[in-house]
């Protein structure tokens, strides 16, 4: 409670400081950040902490499941006496609203902000404001540009693409006709995954890409797209599908047309994993684990507790193949029918990831 401007018990009068004085105070505060362990942390905040979860859009199933892991982690940390409150906002897809929410979190003097960014640039200034106030900011999944955050947490999209392409090349013995199914055009994740696959495809010149499509990460549009591709292409040896429920849509299209299933890559969508087992597919899948949300909350609290955390936490992509798919399907009923079966996680895993 040494820095009065920053404490929750700040009096109303001191909030009425003139702008110049406030600016000076902020300068003074940021000057003191050098001594703290992790980025943004000043060491003046004491447990139990208030955590703000600034979501860009809460409606998709992946987001709901991610929020579930955050809420579960907060419950754990509450039991340990480290967290007292979780504030959740949903910007309804509007980056401008997300700025307003994060500003409100700063105003409410939360101790930590966990955020999926709605725009890689738009949040930079408000997030560095939060950092200047000594708030632990942890950014995951969709990242911001600024480095004034406590930590950024993500998997590597380009490794995703490379891993999928490599598996498919091995399956086909480096030879055959394949279709590439991408996520939406102009989205950085779908772009990065595709780029990651390219070097592998270049190294296997006998793998011929017959055609490529972009669809939403949903079953119906993917099934529709694949159905029309099946009509024009009598010979297909493999499908390189790069995420979401696209693979499930593709498998269903093959099924409806009475075509023989071919090796296919995909994501941990429950529907795809169930089809994989049911149709006896040759499959491979990875995932953007929903527990990145839980890990982010954990990381923020660790940083607030004075532990050093890496500025960038690279989470290795968990891989699902024939040897591990049963362990995933065994837990299927704990996940929504249109949801994602993510790999198991625990505190030991988080500690290991943060020790990188």
């Amino acid at each position, binding site marked *: 409670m040494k820095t009065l401007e920053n404490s929750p018990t700040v009096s*109303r009068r001191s*909030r*009425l*400081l*003139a*702008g110049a004085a*406030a*600016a000076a105070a*902020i300068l003074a505060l940021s000057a003191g950040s050098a001594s703290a362990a992790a980025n943004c942390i000043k060491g003046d905040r004491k447990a139990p902490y208030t955590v703000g979860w600034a*979501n860009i859009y*809460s409606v998709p199933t992946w987001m709901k499941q991610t929020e579930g892991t955050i809420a579960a982690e907060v419950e754990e940390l509450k039991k340990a006496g480290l967290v007292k409150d979780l*504030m*959740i*906002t*949903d910007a*309804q*897809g*509007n*980056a*401008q*609203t997300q*700025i*307003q*929410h994060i*500003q*409100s*979190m700063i*105003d*409410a003097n939360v101790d930590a902000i966990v955020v999926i960014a709605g*725009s*890689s*640039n*738009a*949040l*930079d*200034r408000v997030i560095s404001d939060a950092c200047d106030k000594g708030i632990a900011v942890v950014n995951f999944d969709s990242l911001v*540009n600024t480095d004034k955050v406590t930590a950024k947490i993500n998997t590597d999209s380009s490794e995703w693409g490379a891993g999928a392409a490599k598996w498919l090349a091995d399956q086909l013995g480096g030879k055959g006709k394949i279709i590439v199914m991408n996520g939406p055009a*102009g989205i*950085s994740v779908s772009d990065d995954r595709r780029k990651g696959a390219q070097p592998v495809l270049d190294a296997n010149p006998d793998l011929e890409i017959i055609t490529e499509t972009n669809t939403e990460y949903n079953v119906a549009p993917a099934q529709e797209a694949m159905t029309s591709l099946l009509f024009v292409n009598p010979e297909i040896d493999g499908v390189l599908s790069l995420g979401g429920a696209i693979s499930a849509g593709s498998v269903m299209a093959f099924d409806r047309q009475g075509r023989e299933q071919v090796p296919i890559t995909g994501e941990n969508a429950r529907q795809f994993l169930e089809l994989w087992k049911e149709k006896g597919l040759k499959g491979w899948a990875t995932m953007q684990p929903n527990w990145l949300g839980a890990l982010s909350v954990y990381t923020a609290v660790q940083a607030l507790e004075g532990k050093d955390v890496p500025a960038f936490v690279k989470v290795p992509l968990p891989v699902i193949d024939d040897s591990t798919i049963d362990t995933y399907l065994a837990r299927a009923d704990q996940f929504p029918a249109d949801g994602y079966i993510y790999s198991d996680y625990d505190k030991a895993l988080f500690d290991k990831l943060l020790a990188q």
Partner: protein
Amino acid sequence: MSAIPSSGWLYGAIQRGRNRGLGGLYLVVAAFLVLYAVLFPGILSVSGFSKFTQNWFPLALVTMAQALLMLNGGITLAIGPLVSLGAVIAATTMGGALGVPGGILAVALAGLAIGAVIGAIVAHLRLPAIIVTLAGSFIITGVALILLPRPGGFIPDWLSTTLAGHTPVAFLLLVAILLAWKAFLATPLGIGIYAAGDNPIGAFRSGVPVERVKIVAFALSGLLAALAGLFVAAQTGSGDPVIGTPFTLNSIAAAVLGGVGFLGGKGTMRGAICGSLLLSVMINVMFFLGFPPVAQYVAQGLIIVGAVAVPELLKQWRARR
């Protein structure tokens, strides 16, 4: 405000009459502001006030841009793309040879020119504004994406700090723009906007250059939307080719909430501004009340319906008395 001394009494009476329909909205907005100040006293500090008004400012500008056209009997679906384009032009030109003044000029000219072209098409070809602006929105979005395919660009730090730092510059700018609007309304062209919206044929026969008024209205609307984009770029420190998208719908919502009618000539700018203030303050109040996101969707709808219904109920109650 700019009361006309010779007819001060009449002016006052007219303004009272126009305010009456807005009494309910004023009440709702005031209640929300008080509630916000109770929940977060920091809003009363210079810094808190500045940050709050900065988040409201772009919405206030685009609401003016929308209300301006609705008063004239038009509507625009190109607001969001124009905001994006304004942000993109600002972020791509300010690092160049002409610097910040050049960037501001480029944004203003682009807004004025695009608005004027759309206005000319609507006025002279007699095409429905909703179709022309819908088509325009696709073109403008495309141009913004060509200029800046991914979020980026450059805005000087000092500009960001001046416009969106810990001082209420944005609020003062809004006051200045509102005063300018007030002054504009005192010119024949300004009155023409209302007149041509309310009764185009009558206005034409009274000597209002209806087509020119329409083009001016679209040009000014384009200018306001592009300047909102410039501000967004300064606030975020960069350009984003799709950041404006949600503004289209929000500008219409705020204007209608403020009592501006779809048929032209009905409504006031002050009402529209109040509508935008309600949309903005609502987000913060719901945050501080700790509403979960799902409840926020519901509450948002209820507040909007309530804000429109309360003035209507007051009117009926008054009529019965």
